């Protein structure tokens, strides 16, 4: 149910970006006093710092030399050097590199599959009158209301023989009913004439979907895809219960072992010479950053598509 709460916002963001111009002018009437504005700025500034400082610390610690970290106690906010040794060790093969490959693979494959299956289902449901669309819609809607619970899902995955397979990380979360509903309502906004003309030109259902519907819905597909992607990238629990084989662990589980539980990374875990192993805190923070960077990369991208998706949605009314 939380997911529903957090996912409502593609539409919400629209109204927000549309708002400010109109909003500004009236605040002249009752201007806030200086102390009040100052207090607000201080509080917001503090909130921003609380988010930014940890990132600064992660980067700084990962770049620092062993001596600096030993002297300062482990986590520093400013590096004494720009030392990329930790990244080199972490990414040159071994546990972390393998986990990174797993995470990237699961995220890419999972996101593409989820998007494909979800949008196909949403498209079928957006054309009322197609065969079986009413019971199918009911299947989707009811799935939002009841969650089957942890244990039965685990037993099902086990019963299907998916333990220790990557499929266990993808299939149980392949389709989110909520995303189906979001895409469906977007597809329903595409004028019937557009689809009709495609059909007249001889396009079948599949061609209409890939050539007409999908290109028209790029922005909303991007937003839904990014939500799926972040979900796959951050997935922890599924991997924890379905994967016993440590060599298949994604990055989140490796982070738990080596960063949270403070298991020392040895030279054997990385394919580096023992003598050249950087300080543990630097290695840990390098690992942490490796897991954050992909999110930082897609983040601005997500913002832009948000707005675009929103404007398209708004024009369609």
């Amino acid at each position: 149910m939380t997911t529903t709460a957090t996912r409502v916002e593609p539409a919400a963001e629209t109204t927000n970006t549309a708002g400010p111009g109109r909003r500004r002018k009236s605040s002249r009437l009752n201007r806030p006093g200086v102390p009040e504005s100052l207090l607000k700025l201080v509080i917001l500034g503090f909130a921003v710092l609380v988010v930014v400082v940890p990132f600064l610390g992660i980067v700084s610690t990962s770049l620092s030399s062993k001596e600096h970290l030993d002297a300062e106690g482990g986590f520093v906010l400013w590096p004494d050097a720009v030392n990329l040794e930790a990244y080199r060790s972490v990414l040159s093969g071994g546990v972390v590199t393998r986990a990174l490959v797993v995470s990237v693979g699961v995220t890419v494959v999972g996101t593409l599959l989820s998007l494909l299956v979800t949008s196909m289902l949403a498209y079928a449901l957006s054309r009322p009158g197609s065969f079986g669309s009413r019971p199918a819609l009911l299947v989707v809607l009811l799935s939002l209301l009841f969650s089957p619970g942890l244990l039965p899902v685990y037993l099902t995955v086990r019963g299907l023989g998916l333990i220790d397979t990557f499929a266990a990380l993808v299939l149980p979360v392949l389709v989110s009913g909520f995303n189906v509903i979001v895409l469906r309502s977007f597809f329903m906004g595409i004028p019937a004439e557009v689809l009709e003309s495609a059909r007249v030109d001889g396009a079948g259902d599949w061609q209409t979907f890939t050539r007409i519907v999908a290109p028209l819905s790029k922005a909303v597909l991007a937003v839904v895809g990014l939500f799926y992607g972040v979900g796959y990238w951050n997935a922890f629990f599924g991997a924890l219960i379905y994967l016993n084989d440590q060599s298949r662990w994604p990055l989140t589980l490796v982070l738990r072992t080596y960063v949270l539980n403070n298991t020392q990374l040895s030279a054997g875990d990385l394919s580096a010479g023992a003598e050249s192993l950087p300080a543990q805190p630097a290695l840990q923070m390098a690992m942490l950053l490796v897991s954050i960077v992909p999110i930082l990369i897609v983040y601005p991208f997500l913002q832009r598509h948000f707005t675009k998706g929103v404007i398209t949605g708004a024009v369609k009314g």
Partner: protein
Amino acid sequence: MAVPGITALLLFHYLPLLGNVIAFEDYQPFLGILGSEWVGLEKFSILVNGDPAFVNAVKNTLVLTLVQVIFVFPAPIMLALMINSLLSDRLRRVVQNVLYLPHFLSWVVVVAIFQQLLGGSGLLNSFLRSRGAETLDIIGNPDLFIGLLTSQVVWKDSGWATILFLAALSQVDQSLYEASAIDGASRSRQLWHVTLPALKGVIILLLILRLGDSLNVGFEQIILQQKAVGSEASEVIDTYVFNYGILGSDWGTSAAVGLVKGVIATILVVGANKVAHVFGEDGVYRS
């Protein structure tokens, strides 16, 4: 085209829903769901016979829910009000983008960040040590665990949660502010009579969703930190099901607990929604 999606839902959503029958069985994995012995409500006895571990899990769940509604829920509303009143659009955007970011991090990363800042060899304690002061035991201290969980949730999600409130705020009819100012309303009066009523719908909607979710209190977040503080301070219903069911193989009892939890959550959402209708709000859905 609907076939793959529907199949996935049937297989991993509805089939497990049926799988809940193991709550009424003496489930043995090698006998399977169909072969296991039917024991009726026997496994549900844990709900009434006062098993200390279970009572503790329920207690922790309810306390956490209460604390989080009190401290986590208002945070984004206040943040949204402050962000909304920033006059520079560019500043607004920067603040928003920074505050949304933690939402996209995994719990492993969030917990690791808190450990680096507040843990035994973290930033705060290194600083205290360098000043020769006493170090503070924050992480791994059972007494502070609820506070720690709550502040992590605030850090991760209160920025993101402002989105809905900001959208509602941008919808407020500006002439209401002008009219009220002409009538002599002070800024605090405007907040009370114009701004907050505009947020009422969203607030009620989110409270309902939170209520339906009230038995879910940060499962991943707690599992990641449970070892350090022990189960007495940290066990909640979900971790109980996990620890006793999947790790402990006490399938029937855990399934019974999970099932009861699911039923209560559904009743809570439907009930809260009815209450919202009584107060003239739309709630989550209207039939």
